[in-house]
């Protein structure tokens, strides 16, 4: 039997700690989803099949503030586009085919790609191991914790009475906070908040959120 190398151990450790941490977000998602009026079954299907945290939060966020399903799907998809770019990055490293490629696509998310890229110095084997262990680990814990959060919120009843209606925007704030790494990011975040609130009385629910994507387009696509 070959001994597990130090490199492999560090990959396993990284994957596991990321998977468990993400579980906490799963509880928040399950609770938010049920508080927004989705059933426990619908919440679990979102975690099993959509399996992309920010997109799932966006759908329940938009629909709970009165947006249509289409507005929810559009917002979730704008957020899901980054997974396409992760797939583009991971595809030449994973070199998968057939069914395994379909599975790889399903677990292509922030965390699996992040851990894979962080193992770059240990070589492509470690990158592949990090991707699969994190992807499957997050999948397991994300779904278990979604179920727990959804059942918990179901038992609670009135969301406002338990603070769930504030826990949801706090969760969004927690998701965006680590992404604000430059003054430009922070300016953009404040501008998006202001624009969404200014448009809220004017546009049907959900559209004020989608409209802020134009801010990102205007800043991101300009010449540098």
């Amino acid at each position, binding site marked *: 039997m070959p001994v597990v190398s130090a490199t492999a151990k560090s990959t396993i450790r990284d994957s596991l700690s990321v998977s468990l941490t993400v579980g*906490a*977000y799963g509880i*928040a998602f399950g609770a938010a989803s049920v508080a927004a009026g*989705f059933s426990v079954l*619908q919440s679990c299907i*979102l975690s099993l*099949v*959509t399996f992309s945290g920010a997109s799932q939060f*966006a*759908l329940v*966020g938009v*629909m*709970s*503030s009165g947006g249509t*399903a*289409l507005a929810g*799907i559009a917002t*979730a*998809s704008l957020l*899901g*586009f*980054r*997974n*396409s*770019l*992760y*797939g*583009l*990055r991971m*595809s*030449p490293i994973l070199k*998968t085919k057939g069914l395994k490629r*379909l599975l790889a*696509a*399903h677990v*292509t998310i922030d965390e699996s790609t992040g851990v894979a890229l962080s193992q770059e110095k240990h070589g492509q084997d470690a990158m592949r191991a990090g991707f699969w262990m994190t992807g499957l680990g997050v999948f397991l814990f994300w779904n278990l914790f979604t179920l727990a959060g959804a059942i918990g919120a179901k038992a609670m009843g009135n969301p406002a009475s338990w*603070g769930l209606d*504030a*826990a949801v*925007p*706090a969760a*969004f*704030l*927690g998701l*965006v906070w680590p*992404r604000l790494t430059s003054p430009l990011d922070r300016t*953009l*975040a404040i501008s*998006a908040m202001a*624009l*969404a609130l200014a448009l*809220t*009385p004017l546009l049907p629910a959900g559209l004020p*959120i*989608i409209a802020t*994507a134009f801010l*990102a387009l205007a*800043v*991101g*696509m300009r010449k540098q």
Partner: protein
Amino acid sequence: MSAMWLGVIGTSAAAYALKLLGYSVPQNFLSHPRVQRTNTLIPIVLLSALVAVQTFAVKSKLEIDHRAMGLVVATVALKFRAPFPVVVVLAGLTSALVYHLR
């Protein structure tokens, strides 16, 4: 089909299609620097907009209520580098407290 189910199925289908897209297009596709840059900014604006709307909107009206206090506490907790679960629970507790005191 209810709007909720439509949202669940539509989001799931679109999410998987987007994931698979990355494995199916040529490597130089989508890798333009401006596309990459815009892509890092999209989550920032959408998540920020969701924070604002979820805190201050009731349908199409703006309101400052118990949720605002929860968000203030969440912001302070994040400033002090509190972990995600602590941020969410503190915001929830604060909001619930204000809700019941009013």
